[in-house]
């Protein structure tokens, strides 16, 4: 199957590459099929690309590389929804927002991680209702005072 993407042009994928978000993603409830495209080899960044809409992509990152004490728990219902039987099946990512022309001020949404069952290819953006996290955490904390620049 072919998937059109704004960033990578048209790419060829197999059905097994699809990750199903049964409930969609908050703000995009009708988008159920995505694929993961690496930013580059051995990069901690990757794209969650809609299989249907070329413009619809989220930049994501492995949160644990940037926020070493980051943690969250999945409840029973979430585990069921994702058919997770062991934590080895789980891949966790966080969505990244880049302010216009200011890549050093990019932020990660730690309150709503994207959890994927790498065996069943089910995905879900989890809302951590009781956590201390927010929608914006700077990836590069030491650049907080550095205004502007690129």
């Amino acid at each position, binding site marked *: 199957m072919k998937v059109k993407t*704004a*960033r990578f042009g048209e790419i060829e994928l197999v059905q097994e590459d699809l990750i199903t978000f049964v409930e969609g*993603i*908050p*703000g*995009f409830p009708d988008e159920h099929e995505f694929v993961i495209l690496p*930013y*580059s080899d051995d*990069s*901690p*960044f990757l*794209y969650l690309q809609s299989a249907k809409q070329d*413009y*619809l*992509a*989220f*930049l994501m990152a492995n949160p644990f590389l940037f926020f070493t004490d980051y943690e969250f728990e999945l*409840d*029973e*219902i979430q585990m069921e929804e994702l058919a997770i039987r062991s934590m080895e099946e789980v891949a966790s990512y966080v*969505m*990244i*927002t*880049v*302010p*216009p*022309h200011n*890549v*050093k001020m*990019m932020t990660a*949404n730690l*309150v*709503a991680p994207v959890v994927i069952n790498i065996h069943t290819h089910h995905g879900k*953006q989890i*809302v951590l*209702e009781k956590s201390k996290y*927010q*929608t*914006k955490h700077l990836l*590069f904390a030491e650049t907080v005072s550095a205004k502007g620049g690129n």
Partner: protein
Amino acid sequence: MLALTRKPGQQIMIGDDIIIHVVDVQGDNVRLGIEAPKSIKIYRSELYEAIVEENKKAVASSHENVDLTNVLKNK
């Protein structure tokens, strides 16, 4: 929208299996208890809305032409 007046200690039922308890009222703050099946997701609206907003910004910013390889090297 249905508007109901309730006192602390009173309840509202939604369908057969959701009960909202008015636990306490202190000035501007209303404390609610919610009994619902586990499969019903309960969020503070502002948190969910913040996530929706952030997701929309994230999609828009995914088109920023940024070089993330350099970002890491210069970290």
